[in-house]
């Protein structure tokens, strides 16, 4: 698998995302101003502060030329993982439902949290055992997941809520403890926790690796089918 990691001005976690993705395949940086996806099999829109978080998180990055290619890739069913700022960007771009609002505390919070995997039958969680709990850090100021109630009902009914903060671990006031969602087609995922910061026990946890392994397995299966 070859994973492309998108880099905008102000992106911070692209190196971490690359290191994590490199544990399951090859990686390449996708520059925001380019359009060429360089034949990648999967895309990560990583965390950070694209365009300084100015105006509204993710609002400006979504217009980058590279995001047009990312959107086309997603339309073709390619797997796209948005982490933190990446999640915010994918929501702004309309590739995922909902939006991220300021944490109820209004503060930046960096904390290891427990997550419940709510759906293990997705391209991003298939390497998790059902009922799995993951210990993964969060770090953000704007991570409160919001969508209208009807949308939330539909997401839940559809298995599109794939990660929830474990009871007592919701750091930001997200509705229904939602930490990560997928689109209705299941190939675009956004989550506020940082799996790329949890791929080595030496630095705290390796639970985040499950997400990258899931993407690798998904891509491997897809190529067999194709």
């Amino acid at each position: 698998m070859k994973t492309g990691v998108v880099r905008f001005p102000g992106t911070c976690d692209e190196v971490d995302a690359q290191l994590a993705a490199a544990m399951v395949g090859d990686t390449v940086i996708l520059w925001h101003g380019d359009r060429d996806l360089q034949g990648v099999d999967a895309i990560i829109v990583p965390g950070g502060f694209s365009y300084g978080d100015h105006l509204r998180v993710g609002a400006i990055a979504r217009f980058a030329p590279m995001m047009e290619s990312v959107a086309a890739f997603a339309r073709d069913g390619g797997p796209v993982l948005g982490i933190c700022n990446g999640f915010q960007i994918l929501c702004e771009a309309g590739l995922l439902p909902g939006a991220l609002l300021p944490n109820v505390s209004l503060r930046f919070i960096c904390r290891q949290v427990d997550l419940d995997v709510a759906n293990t039958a997705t391209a991003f969680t298939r390497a998790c055992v059902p009922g799995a709990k993951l210990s993964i850090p969060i770090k953000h100021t704007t991570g409160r997941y919001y969508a209208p109630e009807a949308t939330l009902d539909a997401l839940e009914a559809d298995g599109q809520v794939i990660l929830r903060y474990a009871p007592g671990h919701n750091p930001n006031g997200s509705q229904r403890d939602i930490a990560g969602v997928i689109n209705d087609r299941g190939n675009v995922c956004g989550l506020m926790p940082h799996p790329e910061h949890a791929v080595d026990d030496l630095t705290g946890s390796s639970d985040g690796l499950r997400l990258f392994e899931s993407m690798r397995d998904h891509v491997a299966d897809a190529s067999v089918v194709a």
Partner: protein
Amino acid sequence: MPALSPEQSSPSAHRALGLTDAEFALIIEKMGREPNVVELAMFSLLWSEHCAYKHSKKLLGLLPTEGPKVLMGPGENAGAVDIGGGLALAFKVESHNHPSAVEPFQGAATGVGGILRDIFAVGARPIAILDSLRFGEPTSPRSRYLLERAVAGIGHYGNSIGVATIGGEVYFEGPYEQNCLINAMALGIADRDKLIRSAAAGVGNIVILFGALTGRDGIGGASVLASAELDEADQSKRPSVQIGDPFEEKKLLECSLDLLDRELLVALQDLGAAGLTSSASEMASKGEVGIDIDVARVPLREADMEPFEIMVSESQERMLCVVEPARVDEVLAVCAHWEVNATAIGEVTERRFMRILVGDVVVGDVAVEALVDDCPLYDLSPQEPSHPIYPAPPRTLDSQDPQEILVALLACANIASRRAIFEQYDCLVQSRTVRRPEQADAAVLVLPGGSAIAVSIDCNGRRVACDPYRGAIEAVLECAANLACVGAQPLGLTNCLNFGNPEKPHIAWQLTRSIEGLAAACAAVGAPVVGGNVSLYNEGNEGPIYPTPVVGIVGELPSAGGAGRLGFAREGDVIALVGAFDPTLPGSELAKLYGQELPQGLPNSPTLEVAAAAIEALREAVRAGGLASAHDIAEGGFGVALAECCLASAIGARIDCGPAVGDGDDLRALFGESAAGFIVSGPIAAIEALPEVLAARLCGEVGGDRLTITVGAAQIDVALGDLHAAWSQGLASATA
């Protein structure tokens, strides 16, 4: 070329700019004429305490700066040490006290921005930040406001730029009420042979300014030089608050490293305090050349800036580089790729003058040497005060009951959990953080190849106030002890000397004795000083701050996986008190809670040599790998350190020190403070294997969910939950 513009400043302008009449006379002598407005502005900056170190330079010469691992010592933007594998570690601490007292969010944020630029100015990629903060008591609304905004500002900058803030320290003491301290330390790594220096070289080379536009930031003081007509204009045109833009700095950082990687630069320098003036003159001075700068080419945020304003502007997120003429286009192209403004604004000249032009009109022409080297250095007149110069802290505790004391200490602002602060910082980005806050006494970062570095920053200003010599020694010992607890050996040290007005004899004495103490301690623990910063005149209406020589030490450890932890790990492990612990109560945190007067002098025990030997032995013991935990005993003494070992991993302990120790003063044994004491835990075999110099005293066992302590007649038996409540709420309530 037209003659120098004659515009003169008013006769007393130099005083408003902080120059004495004698200094002004010396300037006239060196120049052979009166300086004009532009020149006077430049002198006022470079001859300031901040740039010229006029009251500290002679003393700083006492500090040891040589060591086998030192690659770059004091004098460059940051010092650097060899960390093996072809890598260099650059680091430095710097203060931003006065701007933060005015506007804590922006002051602290730009403090972080400034120290990061120092790191990438030497070609290193910043990998970590630490902060060292001092405020008045959190009972004061102003202190709480400063704390909240400063922490938010540090987080805003560090988080946004993608550099992990991995540690720090914060103390709350009355003397910082008016004059808070905001010190920030940064670390970066570079290929050893790619470190770059700041000396401009090569006559005919081009000087390029890149980064943010230049505005009227930070020129409050110099605005006395503005021509009358502008002075009458809207005052809002005279901002002095610098605003930090981490987004711009992130681009600037990537751009600078890219330029260096492509080997396009002859020299690189950040623009910090004193802006273009100091960065250009210092580059010229180091390179023994001159520089011409055309201020008309400097891209401005506001159109109507005067030449002197451009030269002294402290607008953030700017860098200056020297480039061979043939590479200029390439440099500009790299900057464009990163969306960073870049403009050629000048040229390296043979004649060693700083020449300031507007187009082809010369508006300033000063010998580089006069600007950079000729500022007079002053001898201090130190005198030990005959009576205490700080008021006794207010009494906040009456109880003599050991258990009540322990709970009160855990809840007090100087000891309570710092979680409410450090959770506002990204401690993870770049995936190197092996020990984060509260996991160990020092932060640990893994390096490519599996080895690691550790870093800690420390200074208990109250103890320095009690005894500037011993207090400074203790700051170094504490830092080295923190490193030892993770198994790290010091490589180098940086420091930030935060003091009051050195022209006062007792402050001069504090400064002199502290530097002497630092010098002795650096030699003893094997940590050469590779850089630092001095911040003087930290005084409020009620007097000077506590003398605060903040010390940051970086060290190395052979294996990241072997890094020590502070928390007890396993039921059944035995606990030992080790080291050279020799506690006393005067000057301790408990003495503060009791409202006791600061003692005049601290005991010289353990001696520096004994303490250093204990610290070294502990480091080797941690490296040997048998211990499950190691924690140094600091504020609050043995009792508090035990509680911290329990709270770090939510496991209890049973401690029985047997019959009364020493003089039978149980409170002294429990809560007295000294350097070089440690609590370790592990299997009995590991404890028994400790060398004699550590004088291990077995004192208990890990287990359960209570902390029970028997020391002589003193009894403590408290549920961890109660300890946790006190400890976790102590500061959270102050920051809520």
